[in-house]
């Protein structure tokens, strides 16, 4: 498969936007503009961006708490994302959700989740609807290595398997669930072998190789529409702490450094230059655009109104 220049542009831009979004979000915390917490996916940009860019609007995604890459990958509006992060009325969830609960049904994002593993059963339902209506689309469910130890993971894979539901289960394995290394939370190294228990296909990929993830997602979609669900494990690493407050006593600086060398953005850049898909100047321009996009989003959010207490009962019920 040879991806077009347009696709490479898209992937490179989205990964840069994600990184810029999060670095800016981290700054906003320091400036005291945001309360609460956030979970950053810096270092994992290729996972959400690679998978979601390969989907159509009609394909659904279920996001995680660490899902800015998934949202941007699925073409969410960055202004509305930033406004939600700031708790503003113009945000995706009218300031009621925050970045742990962000959704854009119009682009197929059925929402991020604050509950580890919370999206897995929901994904089976969305896929059931797609199957029921004989749609040619799939549901992609993101979750972490830690989440794969929850009952929800095992029950959902089994249900999806016996009902042949069109779900792509995407496990972002960043080697830790909060402070707990994968080696202490499960007795296997390759999470994709869990698929075998449910009689479905499982694959493990380099989670920092955006091009390969994109291509494999296209193939997976085709496979799933024919054969039913599949488990795709993306092996990667989170550069930042688990959330805003994390002293990171559970890992070494060397380990972090090692993974920073495998930066998904750098890797993609190298690929583009080596294959002469774009020039250095073109890539710099894309980087600049990402910065500008986020600056605009920050401004949009800053100038947006706060939600009103008078509207608090809106949306509790339909």
């Amino acid at each position: 498969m040879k991806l077009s220049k347009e696709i490479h542009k898209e992937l490179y831009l989205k990964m840069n936007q994600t990184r810029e979004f999060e670095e800016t979000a981290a700054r906003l915390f320091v400036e005291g503009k945001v309360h609460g917490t956030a979970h950053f996916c810096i270092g994992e940009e290729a996972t959400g961006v690679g998978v979601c860019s390969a989907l159509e609007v009609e394909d659904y995604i279920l996001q995680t708490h660490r899902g800015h890459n998934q949202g941007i990958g699925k073409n969410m509006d960055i202004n509305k994302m930033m406004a939600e992060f700031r708790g503003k009325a113009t945000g995706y969830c009218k300031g009621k959700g925050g970045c742990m609960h962000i959704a854009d049904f119009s682009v197929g994002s059925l929402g991020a989740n604050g509950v580890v593993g919370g999206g897995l059963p929901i994904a089976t339902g969305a896929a059931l609807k797609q199957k029921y209506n004989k749609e040619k689309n799939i549901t992609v469910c993101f979750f972490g290595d830690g989440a794969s130890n929850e009952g929800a993971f095992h029950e959902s894979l089994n249900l999806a398997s016996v009902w042949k539901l069109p779900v792509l289960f995407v496990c972002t394995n960043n080697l830790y669930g909060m402070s707990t290394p994968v080696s202490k939370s499960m007795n296997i190294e390759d999470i994709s072998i869990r698929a075998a228990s449910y009689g479905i296909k499982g694959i493990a990929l380099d989670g920092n190789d955006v091009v390969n993830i994109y291509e494999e997602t296209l193939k997976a979609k085709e496979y799933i529409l024919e054969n039913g669900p599949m488990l795709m494990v993306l092996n990667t690493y989170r550069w930042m702490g688990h959330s805003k407050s994390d002293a990171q006593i559970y890992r070494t600086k060397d380990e972090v450094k090692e993974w920073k060398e495998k930066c998904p953005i750098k890797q993609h850049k190298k690929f583009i230059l080596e294959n002469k898909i774009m020039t250095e100047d073109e890539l710099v321009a894309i980087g600049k655009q990402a910065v500008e996009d986020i600056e605009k989003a920050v401004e949009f959010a800053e100038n947006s109104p706060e939600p009103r207490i008078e509207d608090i009962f809106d949306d509790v019920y339909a």
Partner: protein
Amino acid sequence: MREITYAQAINEAMSEEMRREKNLIFMGEDIGLYGGAFGVSKGMFEEFGPERILDTPITELAITGCAAGASMTGLRTIVEIMFSDFMTLAMEQLANQAAKNRFQFGGQGSVPMVLRAPGGSGTGAAAQHSQSLEAWVAHVPGLKVVIPSTPADAKGLLKASIRDDNPVVFLEQKLLYRVKGEVPDLDEDFIIPLGKADIKREGKDVTIITYGRMVQRCIKVAEEFAKDGVEIEVVDIRTLVPLDKETLISSAKKTGKVLVVHEACQTGGFGGELVSVVVESDAFFYLDAPVKRLGGLDVPIPYNPGLEALVVPTEEKITAAIKDLL
């Protein structure tokens, strides 16, 4: 007396009990070297080691059931659920197994376990990390339910909970973890029995019945009213199950005016139970006004900090409710 934080008080209670009782173990997510999501168990892994301080995978149902099984068969257990919202994942083992085991098997065994979990809003963590779910567990016979409002209460009540032979749901308050208060010296074996309310402020004009984070807020309001000569009694129930009905009833008789305050959503909240205790008793004949209830608005906790602060009882709302009563 020395002052320590609410989090330190909980840590002391667990550590003291673990030193005393070799059959006591503690399990939860990231409670080991990491010290727990809120730092409550800092230092315990170093002291008691990996056999007694068990870092678990993310698997609330299994942790809770594992604790119940170990407790049924002779160990005593403490489980930490990182946010009380995730009790919902543990609920089957907690409500159907741990709570019912002794009764349904005709008293053959007991389940001496404590499930600790922080609840409450105010941290910007939004709808799935901010709930006050005490009414869910108070509704299940077989479970005891504790919510301490001060470091001293946290310590004394947790030690009592650990020594109790029943499953106890010990609901901590996130926003109180860093709050300091006086706690008896370390050499004292400081126990507060479950089922005893505490009059946190005496008064003769109005009774506020409350618990948890709202206790301090109600005391603050009471102090404002005291400036105008209105003396409010603040009763902290401390344990929802078993409930110290006598203290509530006698305070209601004394003042003749009762306001119930809690952070949890009002509809179906534990406040309804507290009101019933008062009006079903002979205190009814002493009442000068209908008993009032003030809970959180019936909405999920919103993310925006301005909204988040306004969906729970504020000082202004408590003040207005008292004025209504007077």
